[in-house]
């Protein structure tokens, strides 16, 4: 076996433990619990609580979707920021001074986009 794969051993262990715990709980509850007889009385809501009506999937406001979309768009910039940050020191040391301003331009465009979203009221939570 080689060394580099050994590094992943903890990850594998964690996955096994997580999956094992879930399976073990299910098995345990099936073994230890009494066989439930299902009838209409038993499935109905008990004393208090909501009556099960309507669709199983609850609708949620499209506002969430807009915010989530903006989040994804502004979040993904990190994909470029991280490699840039990793090589930043080396690049500047080797004399590439435009390295900094390139990223400044990129972030600047994103900032303008943010202002645009703000101005259009995409981040307004209350209205409409």
């Amino acid at each position: 076996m080689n060394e580099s794969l050994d590094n992943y051993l903890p990850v594998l262990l964690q996955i096994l433990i997580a999956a094992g715990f879930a399976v073990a709980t299910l098995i345990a509850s099936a073994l230890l619990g009494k066989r439930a007889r299902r009838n209409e009385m038993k499935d109905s809501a008990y004393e208090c609580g909501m009556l099960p009506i309507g669709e199983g999937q609850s609708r949620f406001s499209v506002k969430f979707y807009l915010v989530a979309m903006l989040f994804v768009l502004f979040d993904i910039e990190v994909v470029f920021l991280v490699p840039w940050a990793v090589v930043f020191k080396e690049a500047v040391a080797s004399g590439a001074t435009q390295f900094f301003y390139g990223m400044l331009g990129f972030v600047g465009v994103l900032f303008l986009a943010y202002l645009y979203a703000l101005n259009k009221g995409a981040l307004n939570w209350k209205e409409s």
Partner: protein
Amino acid sequence: MPAYYLEIIVVLLGLAVLTFDAVGRVEDKRSLAGLGVLGLIVVFFLLFKTSKPADPGSVFWKFYATDALAFFFKGIAILTTIVVLLMANDFIPVLQRFGPPVEAKAHPQSGFAEFVALPLFLCAGLMWMASANHLVSIFVSLELVTVTFYVLVAYLRRHELSLEAGVKYLILGALSTGLLVYGLAWLYGATGALDLSGIEGALATTENPLPALFALAFILAAMAFKVGALPTAFWIPDVYQGAPTPVTALLAVGSKSAGFIVLMRLMTPFLKSELLSGKVVAVLAIMAVATLLYGNFAALLQSNVKRLLGYSSISHAGFLVLALASAPSHGGALETPATTVAFYLASYAITALLAFLVLSIVSAARHGDDLNSFRGLAKASPFLALLMLLSMASMAGVPLTIGFWGKFFVFQQAVFSRLWLPLGVAVIGAAAGFYYYFRLIFSMYLETATGADGNPLGKDTLTKIGAGSRIAMILLALAIIGFGFFPGSILALLR
């Protein structure tokens, strides 16, 4: 000034339009389109002022080509966008009816600034595509164009057809992106390089052609989507019909021309490799034949002018693929294949833009874009009818129009590379083209239109043409005739 400043200027122009709209209180938003047009005219002249790269060896120029071809296509992209912005100005009433929902207190023209800024971003993408020389820059510029088109095609959010066209374009466009990316990944796998010169070197010495051919299949299918050639051209009629007319013009001219230069650059390494070129030519020839047959014969049945222009755009793509297929063995032809393709695209750009300008005015005035809207146009507006006549003649390839020379050079290429079967199909296709283009002319001059109430449609609604579009139409018409007499002046730009 380095060439890539041009793209940066165009992007800044788009951002400026958005910022002015958001921050300043612009009363008449048509001035935003005016700003865009003026800026693009300046950029067009700056095109001739660019300097050669000072350090051609540096990494950046692996991503960015600065040959004559690149500048030629940048010019096409800029001029197309100018015309489209002028069209957008006359399109405001339709936007108000079907565009994004407007709240009561908002500006009545709200939503127009984006309709100006998005074509500007798209123009920057098209310009970058013209120079893209590396798989990364090809992919990014192509996607900038495609994603912007998703928004633009579905821009009339309250219009059923536009929305539906948007969804179709979205699904098929994303599918072609997937195919392209997988193809590019395999091209990298087959060659170990991402810049096209490196790929060319690796393909020239390769011994196992299979991975490269596997990649080629995906890339061709994806690029055929962008240029509207056949395995993946079926979206064109639907999307052309449903999209807002200025966007259709941009889609027909901009997307096709930039797509073809990328296709050309991607095919060059394959065509130069001895092991692969024969197979690639065969595939391209089959594509050309299928595209020509589909485009021309489906166009015969159309009664909607926008769909007709869609099928005609497919058939033009067929001619262009044929020119591409005749690339390696051009032998005694006067022009190189790249020049032929570039010339054909320039001629198509001029001709199609004129057609779409007339179409957008007529369809806005008569609330429809089927053949009936064009009946009796010669009586209602002799000016528009004459322009449409010129444009259709050039599309069909009547001698002494620019369209004739485009087809002439393609046929010449095909003859010299002995592609007899595709050539025969192309000749039949051109003949079929005469039928459906002249049917439109026939309707304009010899029939009378009847409105919904049964009365002939009058001329009253056709007189409102913006000054900008009027100038653009006259210039384009002059270009069709002028370059029809002197095609050499375009060819000179390519040397």
